[in-house]
């Protein structure tokens, strides 16, 4: 029981705000550094691909964006669920802060995927399992954001959003498999996204570096947005008033 307070030390909005204000500049710096490093390796060290030429270099932003889109959804659903179950305000605020960034990464994954697909497959879009379920993920994000924005009562909005996010999270595997079976039942296309030959070391390296960069970026933006939400919601609190006076 004694360890409990320490684990939830930053559950208090005021303490989180302090943490975020300290961490955000560093997170942006880490994101920038890893992005520069990753892009250097990706463009100047990784060789041209035998089959895809230089168009494959989109992978260095496409895959990290897709990974982030899925991880952020899970984080959003998780924090929203925790906020609902434990009535923890900050957790719900974090879920709201995560949503726009997650939706953006989903859109970027789809956009970069389309721009990669056109030269590789000849089509901007195909209705294969992965693309379709990513598109649906975007709809799930939009549904979450629309629902929480539509409800004026904050607590009701938080909890309704949590329920929706959880149902969506449960549904994502179902949707993915149904879309996959739909394709295979209809004799799927002969193109496979994972059929690329084993990647050169530099390519993997660049992709992982960019993933770290995207992680740090996501933390930074989400922390900044969450700080804004904290100020919006905790307006009446003494610490917020004192903060405003100090930074005035």
């Amino acid at each position, binding site marked *: 029981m004694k360890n409990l307070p320490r684990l939830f030390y930053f559950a208090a909005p005021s303490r989180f705000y302090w943490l975020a204000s300290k961490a955000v500049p560093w997170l942006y710096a880490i994101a920038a550094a890893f992005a520069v490093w990753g892009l250097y390796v990706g463009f100047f060290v990784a060789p041209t691909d035998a089959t895809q030429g230089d*168009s494959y270099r989109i992978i260095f932003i496409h895959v990290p964006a897709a990974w982030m889109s899925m991880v952020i959804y899970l984080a959003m659903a998780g924090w929203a669920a925790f906020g609902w179950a434990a009535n923890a305000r900050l957790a719900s605020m974090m879920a709201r802060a995560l949503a726009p960034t997650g939706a953006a990464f989903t859109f970027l994954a789809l956009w970069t995927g389309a721009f990669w697909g056109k030269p590789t497959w000849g089509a901007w879009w195909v209705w294969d399992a992965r693309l379709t379920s990513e598109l649906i993920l975007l709809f799930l994000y939009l549904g979450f954001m629309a629902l929480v924005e539509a409800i004026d009562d904050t607590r009701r909005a938080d909890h309704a959003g949590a329920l929706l996010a959880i149902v969506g999270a449960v549904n994502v595997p179902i949707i993915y498999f149904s879309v996959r079976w739909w394709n295979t039942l209809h004799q799927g296309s002969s193109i496979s996204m994972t059929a690329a030959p084993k990647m050169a070391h530099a390519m993997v390296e660049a992709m992982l570096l960019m993933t770290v960069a995207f992680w740090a970026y996501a933390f930074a933006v989400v922390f900044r*947005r969450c700080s804004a939400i904290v100020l919006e919601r905790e307006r009446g609190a003494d610490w917020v008033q004192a903060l405003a*006076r100090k930074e005035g």
Partner: protein
Amino acid sequence: MNWNSASDFFAMGGYGLYVWGSYGVTATWMLLEPVLAARRHRAALQAVRETENEGEER
């Protein structure tokens, strides 16, 4: 080094439109989003100051 010249780099072996179309949109967003978040933060801080001033005026 993969590129013989700057123009080679921008051409990306003929795939320039696709590569830079992807990186361009991504980079634009990743510059815009932090600005939007910071703006929301500043606006929230400003809103707190305004409600505080209202309190003081009374």
